[in-house]
């Protein structure tokens, strides 16, 4: 079947081609189309019956002349050739080289869809990764094998934050970053792609990075493949070659929009805001590929970046992502406007795996309590700040005024830090105590009395 070209397309519209009379085509099989100009396009069988086969074409169906379109069914799913040579290479969204170098030749070619990991085979992520960013390490810490997205918005420095994490991420006790990086961009601008490339270059990790780029002016449907190709590479690096892999993907919103576009063409019933009901499962297929496996050394830690349409966290894309990932780092416009970098809005941010990766045996015994206390004190402080805006700061009690000062200092000194500032977890925790010491000891009930005695610098303690 692989070698036969069929010229039986009966309709083509918006990326979908219907082929008549090709019996025995496998669902999900890859397809190659040759158009009248000799250009090769690739596609996927999304519906198979003997009398009609529906093909999704990644490069779109523009200018397809049905009479002069030849189609080959390759009889296998989309596969990515993998070998050690992928390191340092740049591919397009479907895994072909875009760095002018020869294609990867390997007998080891893997279905980009992967297979679901058996929950009984997973190992629970517990090892603390120090990112050097206080708002993350101190309050929303990342563990090896976690999927922790950055929720952002147009114009916010999510790329800079992601790049800083890549530069600084390390396990405690290790000198340098020992991660390899898989970077996937879909619908990203050329400028964004260049930014990451340069940042990897500067930090000297370029030869440990594999890139998959589908840029803003490139075919939309290919975006559905890009994260899958990237994760196939990541799985190979992590579980065959024992690397700890950090996967950065941007921008999940562009991915979801591409999925919606295709769903509309297929006529799928929309659920919310025109997104298909299976957006959740589809995103989960991607995000759940992060993790660790028992008896394997490598791991996949995932940092997807997504921009929240109109900064709305309840929009289906961030919402469904939040329902799948193990927390989220939320960047906020308000802090950014005040010049705070990284503008991490800590209250809606969360790391679900933090509870199992910090504390006595991992970072420092006071860490979980300090984090909890910072959250509580800052939440309280924001209430006071809201009150001050109504009744005026003069009307506040002394205690409330101290609380306000705490909030300001917390934002400037704890959340805010330099783009090249790499704080150790001890520095972060000590800084936290400096700030908590601005508050009376008896108001700090999330930390223990022993911890207060040891770390609180106030007279009352």
């Amino acid at each position: 079947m692989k070698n036969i070209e069929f010229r039986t397309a009966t309709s083509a519209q918006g990326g979908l081609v219907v082929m008549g009379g090709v019996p025995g085509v496998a669902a999900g099989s890859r397809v190659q189309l040759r158009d009248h100009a000799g250009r090769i396009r690739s596609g996927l069988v999304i519906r198979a019956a003997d009398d009609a086969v529906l093909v999704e074409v990644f490069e779109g169906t523009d200018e397809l002349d049905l009479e002069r379109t030849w189609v080959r069914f390759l009889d296998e799913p989309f596969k990515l050739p993998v070998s050690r040579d992928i390191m340092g290479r740049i591919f397009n969204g479907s895994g072909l080289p875009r760095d002018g170098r020869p294609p990867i030749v390997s007998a080891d070619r893997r279905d980009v869809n992967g297979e679901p990991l058996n929950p009984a085979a997973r190992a629970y992520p517990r090892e603390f990764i120090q990112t050097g960013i206080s708002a993350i390490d101190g309050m929303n810490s990342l563990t090896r094998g976690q999927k922790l997205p950055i929720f952002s918005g147009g114009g916010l420095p999510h790329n800079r934050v992601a790049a800083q994490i890549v530069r600084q991420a390390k396990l405690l006790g290790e000198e340098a970053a020992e991660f390899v990086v898989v970077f996937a961009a879909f619908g990203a601008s050329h400028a964004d792609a260049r930014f990451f490339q340069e940042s990897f270059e500067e930090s000297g990790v370029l030869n440990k990075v594999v890139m998959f780029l589908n840029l803003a002016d490139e075919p939309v449907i290919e975006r559905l493949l890009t994260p899958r190709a990237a994760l196939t590479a990541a799985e190979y690096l992590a579980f065959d070659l024992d690397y700890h892999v950090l996967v950065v993907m941007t921008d999940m919103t562009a991915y979801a929009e591409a999925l919606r576009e295709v769903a509309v063409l297929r006529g799928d019933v929309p659920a919310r805001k025109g997104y298909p009901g299976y957006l959740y499962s589809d995103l989960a297929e991607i995000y759940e590929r992060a993790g660790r496996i028992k008896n394997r050394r490598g791991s996949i830690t995932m940092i997807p970046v997504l921009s929240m349409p109109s900064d709305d966290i309840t929009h289906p894309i961030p919402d469904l992502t939040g329902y799948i990932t193990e927390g989220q780092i939320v960047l906020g416009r308000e802090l950014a406007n005040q010049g705070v970098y990284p503008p991490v809005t800590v209250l809606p941010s969360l790391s679900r795996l933090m509870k199992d990766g910090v504390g006595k045996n991992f970072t420092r015994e006071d860490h979980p309590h300090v984090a909890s206390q910072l959250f509580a004190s800052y939440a309280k402080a924001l209430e006071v700040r809201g009150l001050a805006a109504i009744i005026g700061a003069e009307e506040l009690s002394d205690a409330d005024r101290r609380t306000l000062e705490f909030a300001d200092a917390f934002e400037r000194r704890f959340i805010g830090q330099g783009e090249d500032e790499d704080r150790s977890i001890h520095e972060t925790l000590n800084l936290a105590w400096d700030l908590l010491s601005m508050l009376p000891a008896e108001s700090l009930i999330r930390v223990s009395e022993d911890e207060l005695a040891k770390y609180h610098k106030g007279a009352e303690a």
Partner: protein
Amino acid sequence: MGAILEINGPLVKLELPQTVIGEQVRVGRMGLVGEVIGRDGDTALAQLYEDTAGLRPGEEAEGLGWPLSVELGPGLLGAIFDGVQRPLQAVREQSGDRIARGVAVPSLPRDKAWHFVPDPTRQAGGMLTGGDVLGSVQETESILHRILTPPLIQGELLELAPEGDYTLDEAIGRVKLADGRIEKLHLFHRWPVRTPRPFKQRDHAVAPLITGQRILDTFYPLLKGGKAAIPGPFGAGKTMLQQQIARWCNAEIVIYVGCGERGNELTDVLEFMPELKDPHTGRPLMERTLLVANTSNMPVVAREASIYVGITLAEYFRDQGYDVVMVADSTSRWAEALREVAGRLGQMPVEEGYPAYLGSRLAAFYERAGRVETFAGDHGSVTLIGAVSPPGGDFSEPVTSHTKEIIQTFWALSKELADARHYPAVDWLESFSGYVKSAAKWWAETVDPNWESARAEALDLLAASEELQRIVNLVGVEALSSEQRWTLEAAGLIKEGLLQQSATDDVDSFASPEKQYALLAALLDIYRHGMRLVKLGAPARRLIQLPLLAQARRWKSQHGSDDLAALKAKIAAIPDSFEPLIQEYTVPLSTLREATP
């Protein structure tokens, strides 16, 4: 033998005459399994439990002759199954770390022999009815697995095996049915998951399910045999709360169904359950737990099946006379799986893409909870606790709103509380329980006669403080009277000293009913003492400075449920803290006498 006509996502159209809706089918060279969901003449529509990529029109398909069923017998406890009861540990041994397709492994191990002890009252020649106990197997140290006669069987027991070791494939008895046929009995039997298992009659639920979580047990109780929902936006704590319940509740069997959620969460349960001890029996928790896992990256049709598999397993243990709790995380993912299939079938969506039968399916599912009298004459119960994941945290969406009408206990999680790291983030104003009256009886008899009034007083205090907070947010705290300020302070004390209960706090993760009540009563006592002083003219400012308030907030983490004597000593000393102020603000009797003419 039939054939595949068309493949469309998880749905395949088959040429398969004489099948019936619900029948299991095996399809294609890979041998993928699914079930028939529609028929039209000689063609049938089937949904497959596995990914359909690679299937081709023309490949074979066959009907298997039975509906989706589960195997019920020894070997269930401690296991982890997928959404159609494939044992994931065994699947891993066969197919490696990733779940390959078409793997056929029996749900229960066939090579293992179990020590069967026949029930002495069962004699050959006696009559046997479905649900009767044939004997038992001590499956784990804490759980005696009662071997039941399969439901619907009725006849004369011809033979029952003597005490000894038997594998599941060996017959342990024979029964002669009314029509003369002879049926073999085994340590296990099968039951179709979409059919509720029969029982003698429904019973009233009487005892509260103790979860050790104060906001649940003390404020919004659930009964053994009741139905509860935990709705909440992402990250609000649904899974943590369900895991807490799975850990600490006083049920005898816990079925944990991960339906369309994270793989790591199941790994977490698999890792901690064997290490933790059941607070009620002292045995490892895994001995009473079983897991059903269809994670979000596993095929969507099996997700739809998974909660039926879970509830059938729950009913089976109920029929042995056990109190069973099933937690389902998340019912929204189940509803979405339903929606996805309905969409592909071209069924008319009514709200947000969901089919019209969403409400009735949900109701029928929750209806399988309850306390019953079993055929064997015991009492057993299934308590059902479903998480709901509303898009955007909007409780007016279809799954949440339908569920809310079905269940009796509603533990509403709030994003605001979770953001402030007030855990469990159960909103004390939005939540409700229809079981308070029944629970009150138990608390009055078992813990303290004043439970109901104390609970009401605390809730009133919380509601009042909500009002006051609104005023404060408009005009500042100075606008409040001393009485109001003290009310606000006391409500804060209740929130931090009682409602907040961290799952990660070793001392406070579980609170016994006695500890729960002791704390509640103590904090109310502080409130009343303060109020008395305020009425005597003491300014709230003075009271708020009392060190007692900060101390009382720590009591919950300082004294575990096994250390109540020390807690009670502190409670007994509450009046002492107020004594100086009382001295100050009470007009001495003598001056009073002089002033009266």
